């Protein structure tokens, strides 16, 4: 039970960061965010589009995003999400934590490689 929860937490944190990161570039609707994540990770991260929405709504509840129905590039109305100031702060925090993690993993990985030699 616990290990499954950890996995969800990890994934959720990652997905949250990807969404916030995407919205740093400007307002976007769900479909655009999904496409952007897919393209910018070169399709490595295959996200089911649907799983974005719980994340979007959760981030909105936390006050990191706002949303509004708008007509922008096309004639159709979409619900656009925007990053709030709090959202930007959260993104900075998550990124630094992420970088620490990556550095730590990289260090471990390189030690392992050296020993293997």
């Amino acid at each position, binding site marked *: 039970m616990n290990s499954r929860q950890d996995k969800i937490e990890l994934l959720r944190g990652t997905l949250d960061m990807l969404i916030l990161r995407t919205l740093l570039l400007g307002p976007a609707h769900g479909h655009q965010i999904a496409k952007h994540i897919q393209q910018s990770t070169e399709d490595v991260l295959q996200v*089911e589009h649907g799983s974005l929405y719980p994340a979007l709504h959760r981030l909105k509840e936390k006050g990191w995003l706002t949303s509004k129905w708008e007509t922008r590039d096309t004639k159709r109305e979409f*619900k656009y999400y925007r990053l709030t100031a709090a959202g930007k702060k959260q993104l900075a925090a998550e990124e630094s934590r992420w970088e620490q993690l990556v550095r730590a993993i990289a260090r471990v990985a390189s030690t392992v490689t050296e020993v293997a030699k």
Partner: protein
Amino acid sequence: MNLWQRLKILLSRQDREHDLAREIRAHLDLEAEEAAPGLSPDEARYAAQRVFGNSTSVKEDVRRTWGWTRWDQLLADVRYGLRQVRRNPAFSAIAIATLALGIGVSTAMFSAVDAILIRPLPYADAGRLVMIWDEMSQIGFPKHHSTPAEWQEWRSHNTVFTDVAAAESGQAALSGDGEPEQVPARKFTGNLWTVLGVQPLLGRVFTEDEDKRSTPVVVISYGLWQRRFGGSSDILGRKITVNDSPWEVIGVMPRDFYFLPARDIDIWMPAAFSAEHLRHFSWHDELIVARLKPGVTLQQAQESMAALSLRVTAQLSPPRAAVVVPVREELAGRTQTSLIVLLCASAAILLISCVNLANLLLSRGAVRRREVAVRAALGAGRGRLIAQFLTESLVLAGLGAAAGIALAIPVIRFLRTLVPETMAIANLTLDGRVLAFSAAIAIVAGLTFGLAPALGGSRFALQEGLRDGGRGSSGARSYWFQHALIVLETALAVVLLTGGGLLLQTFQHLQQLDLGIRSEKLLTFEAPLFRYRDFDKRVAFVNAELEEIRRIPGVASAGAISRIPLTEIAGTTRYRFPDQLPTQTRAQDALSRVVTREYFSTVGARLREGRFFDISDRLSQSPVVLVNESFADRNFPGRSPLGAKLQFGRSGPKAYWYTIAGVVKEIRDRGVAQELKPAIYRLHEQADQTGDAPVGIVVRTTVDPASIVAAVRQAIWSVDKNEPVTHVQTVEEIVARQLSAPSQATALLAAFAMLALLLASLGLYGVLSYAVTQRTNEIGVRMALGATSANILMSFGRRGIALTLVGLGVGLVLAIIAARFMTTLLYGFRPGYAPAIALVSVILLSVAVIACLIPARRASRIDPIVALMHE
């Protein structure tokens, strides 16, 4: 998120749902358009859905982020609970009715307890107010009225009170404008108002200075102001005629003001103690009320006052201690005990109904096992299942509470008559507090009876539940809890039945007491004699008014006495025999009554020996008295008191020596339920050495006493047109009023006990009949293997009877413990436990036998073939 936000979300739920659906649709549409060209619209849509994932579960996940799933679940559970109620009407009706009884009875009792024991009294910081009494147990008064001298000493020397005030009995005959009327009055010392911390509605109250100078000013009650003076605004400053002299009305008290000893006092006047009065250590007529200093406890005040009082009365034989009692306790009196006993009884009924419901739900839980298993298989966690079960119980409890409140209304109406005469007619209503109480007990009840079934119901392992196919042979293991519940409720019912039985015996005893007089067709009233201070004029007036009354058609005879029989607990005197020193008489205290010659024959008193007063007893030179049996037995055990001489009421060389001329069979002068006391009766024509006057008139009629009341008034007014006639009542009414409190307490407790018995037997019946249903298969097998109907009948019946017997045993032990707390309700009567216990055992066992026999007979009549094919 606070409740309000949640509520807003709940309300905007439709909007949110709509918004989410639209968002997902837009996404899917766009995805379908951008999908590989050349696909048919349908194919494109499927492709989009594949990329998107399961949109239903996405929506579910999104909803969870909105934070109201729990509320949503709650609503769903409530809806489900209501559906369960509708789907099992018989079960629900029994459950709701059971709960309604428990909650209704408790709600009604709470409203009475709240009004009488909890609500604030109409005094400032009433919790700090106490009454101080003289402790004179040696002559039968553990709490005796105090005296002016003690008041003065206590007031100046105590260290525990901010102030001490006194109130004395008074009388006020109103005349002048309107019919002459005697109204209940009290004399207050000037500081009593500030001790109580009360303000008048209009005008002002009298000051200590006015009290000291005996200024003729009065404060009147709201009731008198409205009734006699039409609520007129110029009442202040008006001179009214009280006791034949003019008094100025200076204030009107608020409608809710009252103070001991009764709620219907109409006039308060200054106590105006004279210097002689203030030296009086034997004028036992003062109610003393005091306010505790901040930080002083009741215990400290009690100790300090007892010591002070012993010091102050050191020169008396014997010196007296003092007793300090909180005002609240004094006001509620004996009612406090009956209320607490009845509240406990209603709590027991509530507990029994909860136990019954728990049992019903446990039984049904087994039936619902399959449903639970399916739910669990579909992913409901244990917590979720428990929450659902509890919600269902709470739904039942809520419905039960609604029905219970409806039931409480008539019970409350009945309880109103329980309010003691010393208190304001307290408002017994279903107000916010009472409703909040019933809501609270409904929730507690719902959780109590719901918890065990919820825990039990959710425990079934999944596969077991499904595999079992609902056959439900859960074995003996799950029965012990239900059996314990049956024992518990039977025991509670036994406690209530025993308590009810004891009260019933007491009540019967009170009803069958020999009053010493014949109570039927005996009218009594008072005609105050303070306007006839002169002894000869008083004697002449009394004889004249009685003569007039005897002339009325329908009157058989008429007499007078200084205190109406059955109504006055005190009015006592110390007495002395010729061979005794004054110091040897300290424990010799007797009721003293002044009567007219015809009094005893009018009330129908009987003689043990000697004679009644007769025409020869006229002159004071050879005064005679009659005494009662208590007096004779106490002072002349085993011999005749006739001819003995005694002194009383007054001492000194001029005091009369009275000769005992007869012994009267005990008359319950002090009240129906009061202990007997020695009594001395003397003739009013020889009573020139006392202020006691025969103000109470008794009239034996041959017609309905009510029909001659007007004629009696006219007869008295024909002698003196300003003579008030008050307290008109028959002896039967007096007896009924005095028995009303015990009769109501008895009736209520008996009703509660019957209810408890009914519920407990229903519980027993329910559990057994459920067991029969559940074990139909087993019974079939046993019968197929040769068990006879009688075997089956025995096996089921035995279990029920065994449970009942255990419950009976536990209950009787509890009942004997509980009975100790009920002693004040038994009015000094010691009912035998044996008859109550025997009666309770017989009732309980016969009801239990019926409750067991019905299901057991059903079991024994099962057709094995049908039983084996059952399910």
